[in-house]
């Protein structure tokens, strides 16, 4: 429930920002959407088992699902590289405006 609400809130912010004018706001929206999607991946793994999947500390029966965690970990890094690439695009040219002057 709480995770679902968080995801909803983040998606609201992400979509709002992504539909604005100017590349920087779109990038910020993209970053926020990344957070929401990563949490959704975690949510798919279930939130009822919350022990860390470090077998030195936890037993295999109580540890949370490591699979979505591995997904999310790489997703964060990839999203990061895409973000800095988009930031580069925003820093080139004459302005980060994405629309003709209206």
């Amino acid at each position, binding site marked *: *429930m709480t*995770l*679902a609400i*968080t*995801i*909803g*809130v983040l*998606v*609201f*912010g992400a*979509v709002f920002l992504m*539909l*604005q*004018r*100017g*590349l*920087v*706001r779109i990038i*910020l929206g993209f970053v*926020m959407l990344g*957070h929401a999607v*990563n*949490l*959704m991946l*975690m949510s*798919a*793994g*279930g*939130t*009822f*088992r*919350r022990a860390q999947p*470090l077998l*030195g500390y936890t037993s*295999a029966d109580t540890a*949370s*699902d*490591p*699979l979505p*965690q*591995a997904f999310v*970990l*790489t997703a*964060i*890094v*990839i999203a*990061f*590289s*895409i973000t*800095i690439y988009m*930031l*580069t695009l*925003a*820093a*080139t*040219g004459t302005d*980060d405006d*994405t*629309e*003709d002057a209206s």
Partner: protein
Amino acid sequence: MVLLILLLVLAAAVIGTPLADRLLGRNAGWLLAAVLLALAGVVLSLAPSVLADGRSIEFTQPWMPQIGVELRLRMDGVGWLFTLLVTGVGALIMAYSTRYFPKGRRLGFYFLMTLFAFAMTGLVLADDVVLLFVFWELTTIASFYLIGLSGPSASRPAIRTFLLTAMGGLALLTAVVLMALRVGTTQLSVILADPVWSQDTAFATTVAVLVLLAAFTKSAQFPFHYWLPDAMAASTPVSAYLHAAAMVKAGIYLLMRFTPAFSDVAVWNAALITFGLITAVLGAVFALQQHDLKKLAAYSTVSQLGLLVAVIGVGTEAALVAATVHTLAHALFKAALFMMVGVIDHQVGTRDLRELGGLARRMPVSAGVTVLSVLSMAGIPPLLGFVSKENVFKGLLEAPGPEWAGALAGTAAVVASVFTFAYSFRFAHGTFWGSPRGTTDVREARTTFLAGPAVAAGAGLVLGLAVPTLNQLAERATADTAGGDHPAELTLWHGLSVDLFMSLAAIGLGAVLVWWTASGERLAGRTLFPVTGPTVFEALHEGVIRLGHRVGDLTRSDSPTRHLVVPILVLIALTVAVTVTGIDVPDHFGETTDTVDWLLVALAVVAVIGAVVTGSRMAGLVMVGIAGFTTALWLFLLGAYDVALTQLVVEILTVVIAALVLRRLPKRFHKVPRSRTVLTALVAAAAGVSAAMGAYFLTGRRDISETGQYFLDHSVEDTGGSNVVNTILVDYRAMDTLGELVVLGVAGLIIIAVLNSSGLLPSHGDRRVVVSRNSAAYDADDNTLIMRAVSYSLLPLLVIWSVYLMLRGHNDVGGGFIAGLVGGAGFALVYLAAPSAEVARIRLAYPMIIGVGILVAVFSGLLGYFDGSFLRPLHTELDLPLGDYAHITTALVFDVGVYLGVVGVILTALNQLGLDESRPGDSTLGIMAPTPDQPPASTPDQDPGNHPEDPLDVASNGGSR
């Protein structure tokens, strides 16, 4: 085996052409001719076995056993004839090419011609439909490049030819797939013998039409006939080989090959006969109209191919005897004729009939060779063309269908032959007799130049006189196609049969036509049709492109919003649809909510509201940063320590790098109308509700995934690592991680490429903060002192810590990604603390670090081959003193690669975006800019003159120490 050797020798010849070309220049053709001649000899030596004994040579080599596609080769009578044509005529043309081209290297030409010979041989020997298709396409590609070799003017014809024949190729591919699926094998001979063709008429008709389309485009049948004259932009040896003897015959081959399957399909017979005869008549009429000898020969080829298609369409034994012999006859006289066009063009400097005439006295041998070939083409005894054409007449009279069909087909063929006689006469007479025109300084061509055409034309005479020797070939080919034993009885004199009178009528009426049209002069150049093939093609082509534009216009907008909103709206619509219909969901599995979670919900709400309402870029960045930290906390609560740590460091780095970018942009976001804000808020709200509902109803309602449980249960035993997430990344799914590492590296390289090609946006003037000279903040060196002191001692610590994180990642929180990010954060700190961009520049070859990282990861993958597969980690236990031991694994090497890649990309972003393009010292000021307690003392844009706080002054101050 001999078939494989044939192909292998040709393949070796293809590979050897660059060397031959380097050593011999244009004379490389002699060598290639020798190779092809030797192969033709081999083919001839197979005649007793294939033709006399009626055996088929077969060879099978597994190729793609998973889908049952093998390298199956098979040579029956039809295959034998076409292989002989490809190698024999190929040898003549290669020899001819050595004198056709001026001295010098001809790598492209010889390479592509040999490649074509290879492809064509493969095509006629293939006994697997997939193999057949591959070779079919290869001939198309070779033809495209060979036409294109002739320079810029040939580019459109090359493209037109390619598109058209490739379209036919697609039809063939469809047919191949349909046949393979239906019959269950890709072996051609099995497919052809399958009973499905007589049982399922609809299926047979569909495949027949597809095969027919492929053959029609390849063999230039109406309405696709125009590409052949169009392709005359190619050099003459290319035309002689591809567009007379070999490639255009691929269509004929295909039709003959599929005759056993389709000879009873009514559509097949009707289409082949009708379109074949239309093409025959049309081509012959157009040929008579040409001034250009080469175009004349091209239209003549179109016409002769039409006759062949029609006679194959009849499908009786007699018809296929005719098709076999005429294929041979046509290849000989048409290759010779094309080569003679080249000889005339070469010696006289023109091939336009209006500028030629009376050359017989100066070029007697050329005249003789030409006459021999046109006599064969016109069907005059005792040449082979006479026998073959008579047989074509005889075959066409047997056309299936109503009584009058045979008579009509025969008449049409005679009409085509009347024109054939006329244009044959026009060709020879217009060139070698009549009044001399143009240049008179013409010499006979060299013997080596004439050898090729002379042999081809001479063969037409010899085979004509000794035509019964072809009986075996014709009988075998007929048995392969029409089935059954049918005596061919090829002879020059048949007695007073109908076909003899048809031949006589063709010659007689042809003579009348020559007299009436002054050997075509009166028809030449006259427009018979309102449109020409190439213009129709170009119009269609334009139309398709325009249609594509129309479709594309729907989404052609520079505004990302237009594109982004579409998938969002679709998702919302999906949610609405699912909500309305309703779906069953199981109950939640276990307790999903903790009280402390609500704190994070509140934090997310604050961050999102802040990000949405603020108009300031920096505030927006901070708010999104807060959302990121909230996410990290969430991950922490969910037990994903590794991930939470990654998220935390990434968030810091994102903010640092974004700050570098934001200082170049206006302070505030662009203004948008209020209505738009409301609309986007509505869409966003709908999307948010959809996402929340999706997450609530569709996730967390089952136990932990089986895969996840497997990893938890087996990771220690499989990999020796107890940090399960890390073992997934570097052991179980290392290939995915390698892919992600490459994406990361490419992103880094793109940043460099983009900034090198477009340059940075200049820093935004009005955001420049210039403080008074008396202020402590004025001096960049002074005001960063503390940070520098801290960062210089922290950097080594951070680097050491990051290496430690990496080393322990297999068992504890850490790993390559996190370690790389922490190390990168260390550099970011140094960067932030530096007084100027110049000083801050970390002089490390960051693109190199990215590259080394990826190479190290790949290297660790290669180590895996010691244990059988790419990226499989190797493990060993290392005994240490004091009874301790350490677990060593190559997964650690892989993690080092990841580490380097991540550090490299962060360094790239910091250095590239932090670079100062115009004014040194800017970077410090830019980072100070958002700090509110240092109000700008003046803005340089307002007064760029000799102001005491001139920015350049500041800059030199900041950067010089």
